[in-house]
């Protein structure tokens, strides 16, 4: 009998071959490429880290000579506001938006500011990573615990992998950090803890118990991770895979684990501006980003998990022995997310503050 892992590998290879057949190349749609070259430029408002996004854009420029991607970083709600201010003033600058805030992108699509564009790989993008034919999540963010390998023992890693409640173990008192910052990846675990289906397991009482463990609280979530890297804190429960991966690949003494259940959600939503000054070049770029090459480039150059089915996992760390895929995923509920985001995060911030 063929071992299960080998079966998965073969399936992935077949899917990759199928994917390659649909790959976006200059030859796959010569008319679109010619029209795109005439426009010459795509102005991309990015919400993700500039270095990673520039690297991905650079890869596209290599594969599609004659088209320049101009990135401009505007994060979350700031991007929404800037885009809406510009649209209101009829200053049409942005071609492609990449917004980390799902409700903002959903709202833009609903209000008619995003052009419908069905990418060629549409059917391979799972429904939770699409907003109709308007926007697509470029990658998925998976929450976990990022720890310093010199501070957390293998036994403690095993314990923490069992459940988020393991952080309440007395041995972890004063050893970890949290962040009350309002951002998507910061909210995802709180969103799960406050899920009515988990009201007996987690809920507000669980938040209070975490705060009673006297964690260090940092206003910026990335400072939280940086302090773990430096060894100031042993681990952080405000982590997510891509944030850890970027640093680990640079040599930082950190790894991450996924307690059960593990929140995962579509992040960095891509949508073409309805008023895009360079619509053809933007469509071509969007096709590429959500196609095989774009997703592979993203996984290799940025290290996050792609959202396109059938693409072999290119993240460089997934084959390492310490790495364990999440066992039990928790899909976010966007409706409850939108309704409770502010209230839940205020409660979380107040709980941390009250425990000080």
């Amino acid at each position: 009998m063929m071992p299960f892992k080998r079966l998965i590998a073969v399936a992935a290879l077949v899917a990759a071959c199928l994917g390659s057949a649909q790959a976006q190349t200059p030859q796959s749609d010569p008319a679109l490429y010619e029209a795109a070259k005439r426009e010459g430029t795509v102005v991309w408002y990015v919400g993700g880290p500039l270095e990673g996004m520039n690297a991905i854009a650079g890869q596209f420029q290599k594969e599609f000579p004659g088209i320049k991607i101009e990135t401009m970083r505007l994060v979350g709600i700031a991007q929404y506001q800037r885009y809406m201010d510009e649209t209101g003033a009829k200053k049409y600058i942005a071609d492609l938006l990449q917004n980390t805030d799902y409700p903002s992108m959903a709202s833009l699509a609903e209000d008619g500011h995003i052009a419908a564009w069905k990418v060629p790989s549409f059917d391979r993008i799972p429904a939770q990573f699409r907003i109709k034919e308007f926007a697509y999540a470029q990658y998925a963010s998976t929450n976990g615990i990022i720890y310093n390998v010199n501070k957390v023992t293998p036994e403690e890693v095993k314990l923490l992998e069992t459940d988020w409640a393991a952080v309440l173990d007395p041995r972890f008192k004063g050893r970890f950090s949290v962040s009350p910052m309002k951002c998507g990846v910061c909210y995802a675990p709180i969103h799960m803890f406050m899920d009515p289906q988990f009201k007996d397991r987690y809920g507000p009482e669980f938040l209070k118990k975490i705060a009673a463990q006297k964690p260090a609280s940092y206003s910026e979530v990335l400072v939280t991770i940086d302090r773990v890297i430096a060894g100031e804190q042993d681990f952080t429960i405000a982590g997510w895979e891509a944030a850890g991966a970027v640093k680990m690949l640079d040599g930082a003494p950190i790894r991450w684990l996924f307690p059960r259940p593990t929140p995962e959600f579509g992040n960095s939503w891509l949508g073409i501006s309805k008023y895009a000054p360079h619509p053809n070049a933007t469509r071509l770029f969007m096709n590429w980003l959500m196609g095989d090459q774009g997703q592979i480039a993203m996984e290799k150059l940025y290290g996050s998990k792609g959202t396109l089915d059938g693409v072999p996992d290119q993240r460089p760390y997934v084959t390492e022995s310490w790495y364990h895929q999440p066992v039990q995923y928790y899909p976010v509920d966007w409706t409850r997310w939108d309704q409770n985001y502010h209230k839940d995060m205020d409660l979380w911030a107040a709980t941390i503050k009250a425990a000080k």
Partner: protein
Amino acid sequence: MRGKALLGKALWLILAASVVFIAIVPLGYVIDAQFYRETRVGLSNERSLVAFLDVFTSAEYLGYLANALVLAGVVTVLSLLIGVTLALIIGRTDIRRKRLWDTLITLPLYLSPFTGLMAWIALGSEKTGFVNVALMAMLRPFVDNPTPIFNIWSYAGVVYVMTLFFCPLVYLFTVGSLRGMNTALEEAARTSGATPMATVLKITLPLCLPSIFASGLLVFILGAELYTIPGIIGSTAGFTTLPWRIFEDSTSVPVHRAHAAAGGTMLLLVTVVGVWLQGRLTRVAERFVTVGGKGFSGRPLALGGWRFAAAGLIAAYVIAADILPFGALLVSSVMKYSAGTLTADIFTAKHYVMFFTTQNMIAALGNTIFLAVLTGLVCVVVGFFISLTELRRPSFATKALAFLAVLPVAVPGLVYGLGLLWTFLRTPLYGSIWILLFAYVAKFLPYGVMVSRTGLMQIHPELAESARMSGASAGRTMLSITMPLLKPTLAAILFFVMLMSIKELSASVLLYSQNSEVLSVLTWHYMDAGDYQFAAAIGFVQTLIMIGVVFLAQAIFRVRLDRAFGRDTSA
């Protein structure tokens, strides 16, 4: 004659209209924004008093304001204490190597608050900060399990870092006044039997009160509106200031734009009161005039046996404010990741390689220098003429213009940036580098006005009157008497505004476009994305540029920044 007067009035009117457009219209937008109902992502078209009342009457927001004012007050007092002491030692005593000390004391000006903050996080963290690691290693042979001595993540940490940043401003404003002071009064006091300390307290310090008060006001305003250091450290230490709350209201979902605007207006009112107080305290300008028509020569105070103590005091400041943060920034910039202990394999040159080989970095470098030079020049010329007309042709209109031009200094950059965005959004300037120039001029013109006013106040009108009585025209008097005497002050404004422009972030981050990136914005983006080491490399290059630009400008103008604030006729 009549034609010239008309031309002068027309020029003044154009100037006034420009100031109102670039400095006051954005403020109008900010003030107006607080009277709208908020939506999840911005403002609706419906008018509402909810945000205004919430900010101005709720215990929550008044508490944030109180926190900001108390923090700014503590930092101002400490900065004045240290800055004036340093200025007295350099400006009025016979301490050696003044030029070196001058340069070292003003060095923190070349560090932006958030790059400095990165350095202090690396230095002052409780368990892994370089300072604690080194101190504990030294103590370990003598003490069992020594506890960390320093913790930057505390209220004291915030006060400490902010004070180090603001001391050079107090020093610069005060040392110029002290150097240019007529020492006849001091010598009279000494020959009448006054002790050196009594002379300093009763003669020297009162004579430089305008400079001390101006610097205190500036530090207080900058301290009250600073959000990075109190925000990032303060939230861990358990306190929130109004500027940080404004930042959160502006950037977190759901956005509270009207609340942010109301908070900005609140800070604006604080500054208006401060500027009014300054006006009251310095109303009788002649009390402080120390540059009259008569020449003088000064004899510095002999330190005697206190020389080493004075040098030790300055050296301690230089270690804390220069050597440690600049060293930490440099070390961080060549590290792969943050760490408390340094090993050979942690170092890399890749951040600098990336900086000098990435196209948008080079473009940002060019934009930064271009904007700094141009903003400096505009602020010198416009600031000087606004102060000159206010002081030499006092009228309601000239005083009102000077007052209005100073107001933008009061509003947190983030909120003011939004006002600028709304002002320029519908103009052809939007999306170009010129919008940044206008934003910088609006933000830094207050320094041009305030510093040139201080300089002009200390030049007695009798000098110009003598020239006019000898037959010189107003223009000739200006070129031959006023301008040469004011050259150091104008050069100081130029350098200072250039430095501030290079460091400017809060308006730039809202107004830049894909074609007009500047270094501070890129530093912020890399910091925001958690790439602190690359951000440190950009911050370090930015600092070197600032030092280079200032030294170059000083070489061209043959005037030194530290000798130019207040006034100094020796240059």
